[in-house]
């Protein structure tokens, strides 16, 4: 565990120093990474640790973005702390009834129900344009961070300095919180549910209630990620709620490796940079991503982090065997 802490701190330092070294464009990609990292931390709690595959997490990401839009644009509330609070509250309020309905079912049905809810929201965002702005989306205005407006900065400056560090801070806090959750007694019970829900019941694990809590936590994380996305692009877009966006979230989780704490973060990072590089390379980037997904699912189901872990394990074993051989 100690190693993980050092790696985390190192990554945090490197990311914090990035604005001093990198161009604005990669910094905005990193912003995307922070947003998706948060959303994926939540999804991994639900999927990797509790075993529930939700095809509707994008709903909550969209809720976050639209909360930011409604707060800043329609209500004139520019305090980002307030926006975050609203986004989390909205996500929880929506997640509780949906969760109550969905956690009664498992695997396919859970996936289908969450997909249906996700698309329900998408439909609502798309069609009720008087309320939601329709397919044009809703604008998100620049928020103030801890009361500071940074009015003298242009958009790029704002996004790549103060907002960047704020978002990084959010991701860091989110990571620490999720780490604690995953290593708590609650986290253990979630893993028990994933491994064998029936046996878990017999050991007194309140399966439904815990699944609901995991679902709600995941939704809150997704919403926070959504607010970051909304501020970054300045727009809350109905396509954020489309089912393929949920599919991408799962793709990212698998890419990094689920049931593995760092997996989703690695997955988010790799996916975003991979997608970006591919997009500038070819217009058929979806094809490449699809092939990558096939390769991962078929050959490396434990994702990149899992692959790295087994490689390291193999290396260590070889060193130990060589050592033993030498000493024999």
């Amino acid at each position: 565990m100690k190693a993980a802490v050092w790696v985390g701190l190192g990554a945090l330092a490197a990311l914090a120093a990035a604005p001093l070294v990198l161009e604005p464009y990669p910094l905005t990609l990193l912003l995307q990474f922070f947003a998706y990292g948060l959303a994926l931390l939540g999804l991994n709690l639900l999927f990797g640790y509790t075993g529930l595959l939700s095809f509707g997490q994008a709903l909550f990401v969209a809720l976050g973005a639209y909360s930011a839009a409604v707060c800043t644009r329609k209500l004139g509330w520019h305090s980002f702390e307030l926006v975050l609070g609203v986004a989390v509250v909205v996500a929880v309020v929506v997640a509780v009834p949906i969760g109550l309905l969905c956690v009664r079912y498992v695997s396919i049905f859970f996936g289908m129900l969450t997909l249906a809810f996700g698309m329900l929201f998408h439909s609502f965002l798309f069609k009720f344009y008087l309320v939601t702005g329709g397919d044009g989306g809703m604008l998100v205005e620049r928020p103030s961070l801890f009361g500071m407006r940074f009015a003298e900065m242009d958009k790029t400056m704002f996004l790549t300095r103060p907002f960047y560090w704020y978002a990084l801070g959010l991701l860091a806090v989110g990571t620490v919180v999720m780490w604690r959750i995953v290593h708590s007694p609650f986290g253990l019970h979630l893993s028990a549910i994933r491994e064998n829900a029936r046996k878990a019941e017999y050991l007194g694990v309140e399966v439904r209630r815990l699944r609901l809590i995991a679902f709600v936590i995941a939704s809150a994380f997704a919403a926070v990620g959504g607010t970051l996305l909304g501020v970054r692009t300045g727009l809350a877009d109905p396509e954020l709620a489309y089912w393929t966006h949920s599919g991408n979230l799962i793709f990212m989780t698998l890419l990094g490796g689920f049931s593995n704490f760092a997996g989703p973060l690695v997955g988010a990072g790799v996916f975003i940079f991979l997608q970006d590089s591919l997009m500038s390379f070819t217009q058929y980037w979806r094809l490449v991503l699809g092939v990558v997904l096939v390769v991962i699912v078929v050959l490396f189901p434990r994702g990149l982090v899992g692959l790295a872990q087994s490689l390291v394990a193999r290396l260590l074993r070889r060193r130990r065997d060589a050592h033993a051989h030498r000493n024999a």
Partner: protein
Amino acid sequence: MRTGTSRSERLDPFSLVISFLDILLGGVFHAAVLFLVAAGLQLVFGVQKIINLACGSFYALGAYTGISAVTWALAHGLPRGLFLFALIGAGLGLAVVGPPVEALLRTVYRRDEAFQLLLTFALVLIIEDVLRMIWGANPQELGNLYMHYGTVGKGALTVPAYNLLVIAAALLVAVGLGLFLKRTRFGRLLRATAEDRETSATLGVEVGRVYTVVFTLGTVLGTLGGALVVPTAAASLDMSVDLVVEAFAVVVIGGLGSIRGAVVGALAVGLMRAFAVSFMPEMEMLSIYLVVIAVLILRPAGLFGKAAA
């Protein structure tokens, strides 16, 4: 196909009935196409327990291929009246796609369902770009070709004969599938494998071969649906992802794994959409999702499906 009359004009009972029938027929046509795709989904799920997220992609593939097939055939001397056969040929010809895709899916059969879903999701991504590569990003269509078969009916209620043909074709497929599953040896084999994979294997059933056939059949139903719909609607890249949700709605309402369910579910969704579009366009898809959620809560097995949670 539908004339856009405002509410105030539809006051006399006769035109109300006409409008109603008009909408009804539109709904049934849509249902016919949906049924084909959903039946493919049901077959594959019923036997292999795979939910194919790429069903919409096969549908789109059928649509684009259908357009190319018809265009090519007409340019090479096919009489206009026979364009339907070019479409059917395209739909059926795409059966070649089935076995390789099934072979790919076979690598994850034993694993968690999540992996199967993700693999089919990967196919969605891949196929979309393949379509983009071959046909480009702009929607394609066949213009008014389908009107070659003329219209049926008179006065305010006229329906393109093509639409009736498609509905008839879907009915034929429905009946044919039903007979196939109940009366033929292979059909019974299918149902046995669906019930119990292991026992069937020990009884000498080549489960692998059954799976390949079933998946290919499911694929063909999807591509056929796409090919048949394309004269009346444009083929676009969005088709693949848009259809998935509708197909899911059909399957949930009708019950997973049931062909009868596909018929009823398709009618439900097709008609709901048709009426929603006429009276409350904002509710078009919303109404469907609400029904899906209601069904999943009240009767998760759907109308004809088996056990749920």
